[in-house]
């Protein structure tokens, strides 16, 4: 959770990368808070509360299993962090509104990942939603040869959930909900899992579904 000048609540952001002495975040300007962040100058301080919640379990890939990442928009941030912590390359399915909003492609390519893209305006890859790219990978996922990690908007995760149910596999998904505290205090950030509302900031944001 990042303290933002002029806004009362902190803003939830995923860690994009960690290297010696540097923690990076990547965000899209969508409203007041992210706009204020973007206007800060180099050298100004921000107040960060974190890391919070449960991430993807690195090291859960068994021998021979390959990762499939599905990123929607800024969902690429947490998957980039995960990619740095797993020992093998896989396939990145990446969807965004338009080509200009895609980042990190070079980083994944250099590490030997296969990349498939989709954009809503057709400016890169398939015209449409990233969930449509999942189609070709269903056999691998259903047989357990591949493991899916997904991060993106609610609609994307929900669609992926429907597909996974039909094809009979479970996957790791990182959820986004409005957050007031990020530490489990307010019970505000809930999402419904198995008929019960659970806190995304505390029990998640990554859930196995």
């Amino acid at each position, binding site marked *: 959770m990042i303290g933002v000048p002029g806004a009362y609540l902190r803003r939830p952001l995923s860690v994009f990368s960690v290297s010696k002495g540097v923690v990076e975040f990547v965000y899209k300007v969508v409203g007041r808070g992210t706009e204020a962040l973007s206007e800060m100058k180099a050298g100004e301080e921000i107040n960060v509360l974190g890391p919070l919640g449960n991430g993807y379990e690195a090291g859960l890939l068994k021998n021979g299993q390959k990762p499939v990442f599905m990123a929607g928009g800024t969902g690429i941030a947490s998957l980039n962090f995960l990619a740095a912590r797993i020992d093998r390359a896989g396939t990145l399915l990446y969807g965004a509104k338009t080509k200009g909003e895609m980042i990190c492609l070079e980083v994944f390519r250099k590490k030997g990942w296969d990349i498939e893209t989709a954009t809503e305006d057709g400016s890169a890859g398939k015209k449409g939603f990233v969930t449509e790219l999942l189609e070709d990978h269903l056999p691998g996922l259903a047989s357990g040869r591949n493991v899916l990690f997904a991060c993106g908007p609610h609609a994307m995760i929900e669609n992926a959930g429907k597909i996974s149910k039909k094809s009979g596999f479970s996957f790791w998904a990182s959820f986004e909900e409005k957050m007031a505290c990020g530490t489990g205090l307010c019970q*505000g950030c809930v999402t419904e899992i198995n008929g019960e509302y659970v806190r995304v900031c505390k029990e998640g944001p990554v859930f196995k579904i």
Partner: protein
Amino acid sequence: MANKADLNIEVAGLRLRSPVLTPSGTFGYGDELKDLLDYGSLGALITKTVTFEPKKGNPPPRTAEAASGVLNSIGLQNVGIKRFVSEKLPKIAKLRIPVIVSIAGQNSGEYSDLIGILNEIRDVSAVELNLSCPNLNKRIISQDAGLLRDIVGKAKTASKKPLIAKLSPQVADIAEMARIAEGAGADALSAVNTFQGMAIDVKTRKPKLANVTGGLSGPCVKPLALRCVWEVTKAVKIPVIGGGGISTAEDAVEYFLAGARAVTVGTAGFVDPGAAQKIYSGLKDYLAERKLESLADIIGKMEIN
């Protein structure tokens, strides 16, 4: 100079080592901040309101930012009294802070049943009645003098524990409601609960809360809540736990000067998990700098002209 100011306080027969409490619904299940907050700075923990049956709560979004505050419509999500007692309470008790259990019912019978269960549990120091919820006839208890008298009275008869009645600020005359709760047997009062509000997303024209309306808390309500607390402390003899928007030790001092015996820090902890601890040590400093020995030297000591 050693800071010897004494922050012990007695509220409704409970001796508390700190006057800083966490109000209902703003402190998770209790142990969330164990790495981020010195729990020694807390005098007591008031639990999330528990109901007889489990409650699923409202759909998200449940919170929305306001200018210097938060709107929430959690919808009293809780696991119900049975699971609360068997699963949650033992964990809260391990924190070694007095536990005040907040309860809500749909009628006086349900309040009494909840109290009957809590009476038998040693780890429960006191019971707080959340009265800002609708009863079966959709009337808000804390806004209805007759209902308030009836429910507090019957709860008092049922309870072996100290009983705290939590008041809603949204009444024409909060002093009158405070007198009614006192007359019906409350051992202390909590003032105040949240203020109803709403917010609309102008891009989508949708309400920012799925429930449309919700309770407003945080710094933006402090002047409103402080006025309520002052009205209440003037009207009753029983102790008053004051809160609403407290984020700094100065805020807390204002509540003490207005007559509160203890204070609650809720929303401030969302933004700064260490808020309660800073307020606790800030209070010590405030007393020490003025060579005051205890909170009694500031409680109700506002000087008008």
